[in-house]
């Protein structure tokens, strides 16, 4: 089945300009190598290793910014995934994700530095694994090639298994890691099986080809079975990554066993990557449609994702109800939020529809807001856990007295997670609702109602934490001493939530801009908006 035509190696070698677009990833890889090299010259020094890693991440962040500027301002203004089967893509979507990921990576590293670095002997290993999974996540959002997707998911997952069980002496961490790995391995196998089915039928690994083939041949019952099975299997792999129900069982255990900064990393970054990957595939399908009538053929796929979203946020919210561990509670809350974001991914709209970008724009905004909400909430939780040594809700008792400057921003984050104004969480949810309403189909309105009812369900467990902080008190508990940089991180997140609410319009404008050019140009406006920024190693 492999290509018989000889590869033109020269054309496969990327020109400098193209390589530049992937510089953030390269910077991260170089940083990883530098971290490896460090101990050779100066011995195992956590401080130096951390400095190297920070510089590397900062460099990667600046490079990302640069790439994003170029991609968004039309230097290489995106590309239409519908028209290419490129192995790697650099466009608005991946640029947006990379900016967020780098910001978040910075936050995670800061927390790790404050919390665990001092007693950590294996700092270089940890940082390498962390950066390695970041590279994997970036790859996940930069491709539509099935094989590449699988490689990317594995690149993101393998280091994750290791950092979950990084503390070798901790039994729970080891158990969590094993559980996570077994689930990961199984879902990877299922995903590969799905990919092989699709490749066997379509003869291509490009998602665009598969999408086109699906639309053309879905009517044929035989094809329908294999296509459906293949896509479902492939979807399962992605569902594992975003811990969508019913592939979420690994999530709370892994999150509870791991250190809190690792929990934060996995619950937010890896979910965001999975969601944007799914979004990209949805976009590919939308773009493959050449006339609005064909959109109806994709409705089973939209319903599958929509139902998965509805179940995910419902199960997430109900499971969070009885949790005693704050880590688990936040883990289930992040499952619920993955559900809300999945809803936005279920919005399949024909590229020529008047408001086709609203769902995408909503998703991009939601991911950003989700990041700040969790950064704040997890940081507060981390500091409380370090001080009290327990991750039970009980350790939050009387936080308003014991650490008022931590409790107030925590309330901001939790209320934002509920989705109540005046915090950005509401804006994120609102745009998702608008995107769903904009669909004007039963699926859309059902999801609106599910989302809204789920918000109500979620109130209880977030409020339980607030109640514990504000109303329960035990005079015997001493005030907490908190680190200034950690508090700074919390305040940045909390204030960001307020600012993003008031300045929702600039945010909207930004996400609108970043969601441009991702849809295939409509036939009426058939001028290509920019060069296709991908390099195609020839996958046929």
């Amino acid at each position, binding site marked *: 089945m492999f290509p018989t035509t000889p590869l033109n190696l020269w054309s496969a070698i990327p020109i400098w300009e193209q390589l530049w677009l992937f510089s953030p990833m390269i910077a991260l890889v170089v940083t990883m190598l530098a971290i490896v090299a460090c101990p050779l010259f100066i011995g195992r020094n956590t401080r130096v290793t951390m400095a190297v890693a920070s510089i590397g991440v900062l460099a990667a962040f600046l490079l990302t910014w640069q790439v994003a500027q170029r991609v968004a301002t039309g230097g290489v203004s995106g590309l239409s995934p519908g028209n290419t089967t490129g192995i790697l893509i650099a466009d608005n979507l991946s640029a947006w994700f990379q900016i967020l990921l780098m910001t978040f990576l910075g936050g995670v590293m800061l927390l790790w530095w404050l919390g665990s670095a001092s007693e950590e002997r294996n700092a270089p290993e940890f940082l390498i694994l962390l950066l390695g999974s970041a590279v994997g996540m970036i790859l996940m959002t930069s491709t539509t090639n099935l094989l590449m997707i699988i490689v990317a998911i594995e690149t993101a997952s393998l280091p994750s298994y290791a950092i979950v069980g990084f503390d070798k002496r901790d039994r729970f961490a080891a158990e969590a890691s094993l559980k996570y790995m077994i689930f990961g391995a199984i879902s990877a196998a299922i995903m590969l099986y799905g990919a092989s089915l699709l490749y066997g039928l379509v003869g291509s690994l490009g998602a665009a080809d598969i999408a086109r083939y699906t639309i053309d041949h879905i009517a044929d019952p035989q094809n329908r079975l294999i296509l459906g099975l293949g896509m479902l299997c492939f979807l399962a792999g992605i569902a594992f990554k975003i811990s969508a129900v019913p592939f979420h069982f690994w999530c709370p255990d892994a999150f509870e066993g791991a250190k809190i900064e690792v929990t934060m990393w996995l619950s937010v970054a890896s979910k965001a990557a999975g969601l944007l990957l799914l979004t990209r595939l949805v976009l590919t399908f939308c773009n493959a449609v050449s006339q609005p009538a064909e959109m109806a053929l994709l409705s089973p796929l939209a319903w599958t994702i929509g139902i998965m979203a509805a179940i995910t946020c419902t199960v997430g919210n109900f499971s969070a109800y009885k949790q005693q561990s704050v880590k688990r509670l936040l883990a289930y809350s992040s499952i619920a939020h993955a559900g809300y974001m999945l809803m936005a991914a279920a919005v399949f709209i024909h590229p020529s529809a008047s408001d086709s970008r609203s769902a995408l724009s909503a998703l991009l905004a939601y991911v950003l807001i989700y990041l700040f909400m969790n950064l704040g909430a997890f940081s507060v939780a981390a500091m409380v856990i370090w001080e009290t040594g327990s991750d039970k809700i009980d350790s939050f008792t009387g936080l308003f007295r014991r650490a008022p400057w931590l409790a107030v921003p925590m309330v901001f984050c939790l209320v934002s997670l509920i989705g*109540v104004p005046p915090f950005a969480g509401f804006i994120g949810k609102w745009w998702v609702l608008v995107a769903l309403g904009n669909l004007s189909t039963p699926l859309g*309105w059902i999801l609106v109602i599910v989302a809204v009812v789920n918000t109500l369900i979620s109130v209880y467990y977030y409020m339980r934490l607030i109640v514990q902080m504000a109303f329960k008190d035990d005079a015997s508990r001493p005030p907490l001493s908190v680190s200034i940089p950690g508090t700074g991180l919390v305040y940045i997140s909390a204030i960001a939530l307020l600012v993003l609410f008031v300045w929702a319009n600039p945010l909207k404008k930004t996400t609108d801009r970043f969601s441009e050019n991702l849809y295939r140009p409509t036939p009426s406006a058939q001028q290509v908006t920019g060069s296709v920024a991908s390099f195609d190693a020839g996958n046929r």
Partner: protein
Amino acid sequence: MGQHVLSWLVFLPAIGAILCLLVPKRHVRLIAVAATLLTLLLSLTLFTTFLGGGNDASAHTIFGSRYGTLHHVERVPWITGQNFTIEYYLGIDGLGFPLVILTTFVSFLACLASWNFEHWHINKGIRAYFVLFLLLEAGMLGVFVSLDFFLFYIFWEVMLLPMYFLIGVWGGARKEYAAIKFFLFTLGGSILMLVALVAMYFYSGDAVRSAMATAKKGGVTVTTGVTAQGVNSGYRIDAKPLTGGTFDLIELATNSVIQKHFASNATLFLGWKFAPLMFIFLFIGFAIKLPCVPFHTWLPDAHVEAPTPISMILAGVLLKMGGYGFLRMCYPIFPTAAEDWAYLLAVIGVVSILYGALCAMAQTDFKKLVAYSSVSHMGYVLLGIAVLTPAGFQGAMFQMIAHGISSPMCFFLVGVIYDRAHHREINRFGGLWLTMPKYGTMATIGFFASLGLPGLCGFIGEMWVLLGTFDAGKRFPWAYPMAILAAFGVILTAGYILWLIRRVYLGHEKHEYEGYKDASKRETFILVPFATLCIVMGLFPMQTVFNFTNGTLDLVLEHVVKAIALLG
């Protein structure tokens, strides 16, 4: 300040809250009182607009009917997207005006009522208390002046959290339960409102776009103002035609294209008729706030557990948002549904009146009795609105204001005696009038006003509602029995209040309460304005309320009735 008077009004308390965060702890009270006083004074300047008949008929003739003139309009786009505009849109008319004054008035007095904070049984966190208090006031004022549904919703939710903490931290024995119950009920209602918010936006967009498409094709457009470029309902001040969905509450109510689409039986939401379903969504949201049976169960808990000033705010202002929501949204935007459901709403109103009164009669807790009397009184508001007559609407509005004066006063009266006796058992009290003559006199005025004694404010509202209900008999035959049943409520009210006065204030002086100090200067200063208003509003209903509200109310009703005739 001139043209941004409403913005100043909303954000003055918020500025006060920020100041409270900055000044030393001992000045916090002073700053808070100053902020509420300034807000009150600023709101009083609005009288200049309304004294000259500012609530009267306007030049806008829309949809065959008129809508009240809006004053002090501020309109700035806030969040814009592809055919998507959320505006910072403030304005005030005869619906919002009296409620704004009520809010600033009650807030100021409630703030004064918080002056003895250090004597409370939970006297920690004075700074947080006043910050939350002022934020609450900002949210309440925002609700009454915002005309963009989205903005309205934001302010509606902004109130939620301060109130939750005010009850939950500084409340009584079962404060946590009461606070979370309040939170869940209110959020449950507002979430239905959120669905309606999204749905109304998209359905109005559908209506406008299809009208534009018809006009483009050169089709016959029955409605004036529809062109291929947009729909001009003649209402918008900038006269820019509408090209898509809107959150503008007045536009939603008056744009005939949107109204026709909403009311059409062919407009379905998930298989249900659009207008009745949305009406119910909004209705439940507001009915929880009002509250009427069966959505009232949060109220006794919240009122009883909340500290006195917060009970005053709850009873005086928060409950009015339900009634305001009916008048601003449910009725003008879904007139046909309002007519369809009228009997149901009237029944709920009457049940609230009777059930609330019976519950109040059974209470032995002083505060709980006052709380249930609120349920009963707000039942009149719902009944008055449901029957769709001028007297009913006017009576409902008057009842809201009157209750907004009398019930905070009653709660404060309970608070005064609770501060001294530290219990609220009605049956343990007795002879308080002899012990505390000044307080006793004030209490009599307050409770008689609540009873609805002619000459005091409670009477006018109930009377107008009953008149309105009888008046509706021509239109709805079921209105007669409703009016008769509601009239029984008056008797029940008299029953529990007279019984209460007998048990608490009359009779022999009790040993237990000997030597209790009479109302202090501060307490008298709070009670006198309330008592004065109780009497003045009872004697001069036209000059105090009706002159300001009737113009707009009649226009809203005229609009609703005409819309029913046209669309029904």
